[in-house]
């Protein structure tokens, strides 16, 4: 289970302070498919960053399976990201100098796993997302939808419990976007992954089992939401 207790995140931009999250309280059950919606700048991405250990709250606690992420130093947070979290970004964030298979295998390799095993696992995942024939291509040689599928495969290679997807279809056409969402749904229903999706699109949010709306850094109640 994932729990946020009174989480606040404040950024400093020059002399100004921006409150990205304001006393957020939230619980997410294991195996849930949760969509967090809201307009641009409402704090969705910040929330996902905190859940993934990519950032730390200014105050409050982020507790995952009973462990407060604030108690972790950088090494343990990194370990946490390696083993428990798979992240899918809006802009794909593939490493341009590596080909498709190497991008997928990368999280496995940086753990020190043997190359052969990493390549085999990467091949399996590329098969799963339907991109086996593109494995030796580089990012600039494939479409946006394909890049996002590669990113999904990469996110899965360490068999994480939690998948975080930040606007995964934001840079895709509707057909490609739909395919991505179907993949994410299958990850949740077939592989029992906890999927947390941030999106500004209500259509996209509709793929999730539960939806939450955010505005101005706060999570609105279901009664306050506009779905």
């Amino acid at each position, binding site marked *: 289970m994932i729990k946020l207790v009174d989480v606040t995140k404040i950024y400093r931009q020059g002399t100004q302070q921006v409150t990205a999250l304001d006393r957020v309280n939230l619980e997410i059950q294991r195996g849930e498919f949760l969509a967090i919606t809201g307009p641009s700048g409402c704090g969705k991405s910040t929330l996902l*960053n905190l859940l993934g250990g990519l950032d730390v709250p200014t105050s409050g606690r982020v507790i995952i399976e009973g462990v407060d992420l604030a108690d972790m130093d950088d090494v343990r947070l990194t370990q946490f*990201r390696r083993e428990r979290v798979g992240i899918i970004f809006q*802009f794909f*964030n593939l490493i*341009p*100098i590596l080909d498709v298979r190497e991008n997928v295998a990368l999280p496995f390799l*940086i753990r020190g796993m043997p190359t052969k095993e990493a390549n085999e696992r990467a091949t399996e995942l590329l098969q799963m997302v339907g991109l086996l024939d593109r494995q030796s291509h580089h990012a600039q040689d494939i479409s946006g939808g394909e890049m996002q599928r590669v990113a999904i495969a990469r996110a899965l290679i360490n068999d994480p419990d939690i998948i975080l997807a930040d606007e995964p279809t934001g840079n895709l056409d509707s057909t490609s976007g739909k395919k991505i969402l179907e993949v994410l749904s299958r990850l949740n229903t077939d592989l029992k992954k906890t999927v947390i999706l941030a999106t500004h699109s209500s259509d996209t949010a509709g793929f999730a089992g539960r939806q939450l709306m955010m505005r101005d850094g706060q999570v609105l109640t279901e009664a306050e939401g506009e779905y």
Partner: protein
Amino acid sequence: MIHLVRLFSLRHFSREKWKSGLTILGIALGVAVFISIRISIHSALDAFRSTVDHVAGKTHLEVTSPGKGFDENLFLQIKNTGGIVAATPVVQYVARSSPPINQPLFVLGIDIFTDRRFRDYQFIGTVEESSLLQFLLKPRAIAITKTFAEKFGLHKESRLDLLIGSKELSFIVKGIMEEEGPAKALGGNFAILDIAHAQEAFDKVGLLDRIDLLLDPRASLEAVAAGLREKLPPNVVVRRPQTRNRQVENMIGAFRLNLTALSFVSLFVGMFLIYNSMSISVIRRRREIGILRSLGVSERQVLTLFLAEGAILGVLGAILGIGIGLVMAKFTLASVSKTVTALYILVKAERLTISPITLLLGAVISVGVSVISAAGPAREAARTKPREALSLNYLERKVWVHIGTFMLAGLGALALALIFALQKPVLGRPVFGFASAFLILVGFSLITPGGTRWLNALFAPVVERFFKTEGRLASHYVNDSLTRTAITIAALMTALAMLISISIMILSFRKTVAIWVDQAITADIILTPASAAISGWDAFVPPEVVEHARGHPDVEEIDTIRVSEMDYGGRVVLLWAAVTPVLLHQARLRFLRGDEAEIIERVTRGGEVIVSETFSMKFGLREGQDLLMQTPGGLREFRIAGVFYDYTTENGMIIVDLAIYRKIWGDVRINRATLYLKDPSRLEEVRRELVGPLSGKYQVLAVSNRELRDEILRIFDQTFAIAHALKVIAFIVAILGIINSMLAMVIERERDIGILRAIGTFKAQIRKMTLVEAQLMGLVGFVLGAVSGVLLSMVLIYVINKQSFGWTIQFFPVPSVFVQSLVLVVVASLLAGLFPAHAASKKTVAESVKME
């Protein structure tokens, strides 16, 4: 345009202080080296000119016999020549003050009655006495400068002991001169004696070194000189005092040219630094450039903007470089002065001569180099279309596509370098040699992208084996960021090529000299006057000492040597008279051609001469040809019997048999006696027995073969100290390039690093990847630098050195040079990568993965 520069360029510099700072420092070091070398050489020459000018005073013409004295009766013959209103005789000597002072002292022996019209002496003391210089007539009276007196705690009536040749003479200070006029000579290390006392002290009784002449203002200098030449014996010349300055400038011409060429290396390496920095800047600011273009800024304006940035870097580099250069000059001046003194002529340069032209030249070169280096990136920036992202990938693809072209161009440059290396010198200067060296560097720079790819692929399996995924990523990045890495590697390659080639050249030269010393200097003991190191060939070994040595039971053979400087073809060469049968027996002269025994026989019996390799090269003379020498009896032809390898002097040497020399020149003095012992193991005892009994009367050094060898090599090492310093600076500039490049990489790869961190890469792994990348660049640079360094060293040895100085240097590519360079590169790359590695691991993950 100014607004654009202010809003766009200056703000960019202040945003990227570290990168800008490193780039400016790189250029500044290059400018600093250039300026410090130029100032040092000017200051050394100026110090010499100053001495000549101050000693010459108001003299219009001087009558002299270079390297020898002439009969003092000549003074009476010429002083009444038409057009001459005043004449004064002069003897001079560079003595050595006895320990503890131990300084050179330029002593002028003057005629107190006639000298005052030529030189002004300002004395501290009684006006009446000083105006007539009468005090100098007192026994052992000497006048020194205030500078010398204060430095060494001397005053009137102090005793001053001087080593003059083999004698130690005591003088009493009777006058102290203000530092005006001739008292400024040799930095204040100047003294005057009465001429009669000087002739006696310097063993020049009956001889003069110069007659200084003042001419009637209405008389024509050329006419008076022509008139004098008719009266003068053949070996006595008449000339302006400033002729000596020109002679010395010619003498050190090759040395000066080579040192100046070396000083450009750091600037050349700095060019890569600027090019790299500007290229990265253009890539990173492509969005801003696109916005500017879409707002109506023209291509020309964008081009001008980036050229202006290059110019700003150049100006800032010049300002910093001039400051550093002036500080550096204090150190390089000491080194250059020592080298000029050791190799050419005594110079005491303690003050910097800072010419505004040198500073301006430094600034112009700095700005020029920066603008030229910025031209390429500026052109790329100008071509940015408003809607097109000048992505790194776009530039990388351009480089990849053109790798083949670069390789071909590089090979073409190397082919041209070979052709140039085979050309003859131009006006005695290795112009094509320098061009060849430059083309080697250019050629290898062009080959670098292809070479990097190939070497990276070669190293990749090993790197991955040792450094796992981090190594693989580092290898990928080196390969795929060729736009940046190739330029950084090219800069490192250039610096390493200079480092390796100069090291090989110096070590080869040293080994060649060491072999020559072992072959040519076989005497067990060499007797020299105590002041020889300072006084040069004006110091003599007394006949009594020679006879004492000849009579020693342990001495098997003795060679006595007389050396004098001689004007030949506008240069000062050495005329070396030796007992050639002993030379044949003992010394193993190596001749370029012919049989040694037969050659020496022709010298001993036939009155022929042998000349050194440098003499042969400089004057285009070889065996079987005749050379003309000026003797007291007039011009005389001497057949050249052979040409031998020699490293004594750059200008060349003529060896003649001593008996024949004495017969023709009438000079029976000896500068050196070389002794060959029956039992070399008794060397120390024989030394004591030779020197001890005569030590009360004469100051003679008995130097062992080993000591002489060590001294020769010590002087050798000293002369190349500055070359070592210059190559280190070039290397530092290259390392700055690596740091700059790696820092740019950290900025450029912020997103990639963020992704790696997001997917679970530890900070330590990021640091490791960065360091491995720095090491890879270093290793590739080393391989390319080693190969180009070897080629460059061959040009230095076989072309530039040969054509500049005339020496044959054997090629010894000593392995230790490569090992040391490799260690240096590994350590330096590691250090260069540390700060960027730390910066790379410091980025917050969330910010790094976010797109703008």
